[in-house]
């Protein structure tokens, strides 16, 4: 079953903007923040939602939570319609907004109590989350205004997950966390996944998406450009290979080996190339030769991400889709 589905979900801002404009004033036009988004997030998976600033990530999340109303299309969260059943959806979802704003005049504990009361479900996961994110009872008694950015982010994570939601929507969850806390957070995600919870995860940090997500959707200028398993996305990336033969008389011939491209030889006798797909033919080609050193760099999501964006026009500050913009067709959009 799908935890979240969208079908042709679109959002345009600026409808009904005046058609007559004064000279010297910026012309207001309809801005399509999200166009025809169709995705399905499976129950129990960690789903990455990627895109640069203004690509439509926050718009999508706000549509799912009922903070925005769709211009067209539909979406269901946990089997409930985002327009008709928004309140019911929010009772089963945990949400961490990007750059969360908190009540500075409350203590951390009072804030978590208040938000827990608003949710109306017991905060069953709070003790465990406090422990794993290393927030002590003493720290919780301090006012939120005295918290560092990282501590605020921890409070944000706890308020989103303390009631053990079936679906957690997390917008830039590791922003402000130190590397140790990031690891603790990834472990929390792993546990949630093991418990069958679904995570919808938006981030700029591609390495962490690669680390924690099962699948990713990439949006560009309001449109979906890719939706794939992280492993599949990486499988088709070219990996940089560097090979140093022990002797210049015993250099493997890599010409014509399937998956190998960009073959070159450096002045000091090293071979460099790019390798795509199955490594078997490459390994077979070098077998029997005496190799002093071999490095195959792992493929990174960053390269896949950049490749999908490399032919994009530069985005504006808010980078939202102008009505006329024609982004490329999605790459292997499939479940």
């Amino acid at each position, binding site marked *: 079953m799908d935890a979240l589905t969208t079908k042709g979900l679109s959002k345009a*801002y600026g409808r009904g903007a005046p058609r007559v404009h004064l000279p010297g004033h910026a012309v207001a036009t309809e801005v399509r923040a999200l166009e025809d988004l169709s995705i399905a997030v499976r129950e129990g998976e960690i789903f990455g939602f990627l895109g640069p600033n203004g690509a439509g990530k*926050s*718009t999508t999340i*706000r549509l799912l*939570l*009922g*903070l*925005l*109303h769709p211009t067209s299309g539909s979406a269901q969260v946990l089997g409930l319609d985002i327009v008709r059943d*928004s*309140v*019911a959806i*929010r*009772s089963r*979802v945990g*949400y961490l*907004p*990007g*750059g*969360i*704003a*908190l*009540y500075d*005049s409350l203590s951390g504990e009072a804030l978590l109590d*208040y*938000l827990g*009361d*608003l*949710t*109306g479900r017991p905060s069953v996961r709070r003790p465990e989350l406090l422990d794993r994110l290393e927030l002590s009872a003493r720290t919780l008694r301090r006012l939120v205004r005295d918290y560092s950015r990282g501590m605020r982010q921890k409070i944000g994570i706890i*308020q989103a997950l303390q009631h053990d939601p079936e679906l957690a929507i997390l917008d830039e969850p590791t922003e402000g966390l130190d590397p140790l806390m990031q690891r603790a957070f990834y472990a929390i995600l792993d546990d949630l996944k093991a418990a069958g919870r679904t995570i919808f995860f938006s981030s700029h940090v591609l390495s962490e998406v690669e680390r924690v997500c099962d699948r990713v959707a990439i949006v560009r200028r309001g449109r979906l450009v890719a939706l794939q398993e992280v492993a599949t996305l990486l499988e088709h990336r070219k990996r940089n290979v560097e090979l140093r033969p022990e002797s210049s008389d015993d250099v493997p011939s890599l010409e014509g080996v399937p998956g190998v491209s960009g073959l070159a030889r450096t002045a000091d006798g090293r071979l460099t190339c790019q390798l795509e797909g199955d490594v078997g033919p490459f390994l077979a080609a070098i077998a029997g030769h005496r190799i002093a050193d071999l490095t195959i760099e792992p493929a990174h999501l960053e390269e896949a991400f950049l490749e999908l964006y490399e032919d994009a026009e530069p985005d504006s500050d808010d980078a939202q889709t102008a009505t006329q913009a024609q982004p490329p067709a999605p790459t292997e959009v499939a479940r």
Partner: protein
Amino acid sequence: MNRALFVRTWRAQRLKLLICTIAIAAWSTFLPVIYKSFGSQMKALVDSGVIPKQLTDFGGGDVFSLPGAIAIGYIHPIAIILVSVFAVGFATSAVAGERQRGTLEVILARPVSRRTVYVTFLVAAIAFIAIVLAAAIAGTLLGSGLSGVASELPLERLPLLWLNGVLLWAAVAAIGLAASVSFDRLAPALGITLAVTVVSYFLEILGSLWPDAKGLQPYSLFHYLAARDDLNGAASASGFAILAVVAVVAIGWALVEFPRRDLAAPS
């Protein structure tokens, strides 16, 4: 209405509420004392022609009778400011302030509908206003007792006076909340509500002091706060109805507008 939101709102406003309650009670205690001390002298001055007759009906009040002195207390800027702390200040910041700070989305990410949020803030605003005005009534009773004019006070009509005040300020608060749910920033919501309140007050005072401007008074909300008439048994049902209609229209607007609005990410 949401209990958790109401409790949090109450806790956030309780110090302000305590200060305003004490201040308005003290102010209301003072007015019967003024009436007792200076009422007859003021009447002699007006009768002698030293003070223009127009000044004897400032905002529908006077100092020649206890009901008139109490009425002055209700329309005086001191009382207006004290009640406005909640009817204007709290009401306008309730939603627009949360939105501006970015905390509204933390509330609305919970299973709380926008209408519930609105109704909770409306109930809180009316409760604060009702408490402040009840303190004014308590002050009036205390002042009348201390100055020995309690026998002139029609006790059975005090609830009507309280209701009239609550209706006026509930209408102002409803306008403030309607503005609050309509904007992402506090400044325009506060600006609009303050403008309505100040212009309304100006029209009422101008009409009470200048006979040629009397025709403007019906356009003022404050015209329908008839404290003297309430205490003299001459309360106008139509005045109460007009205030109720203004409040209902503002509430209706907010109940339709707030759920329809797009709440984009804070910039």
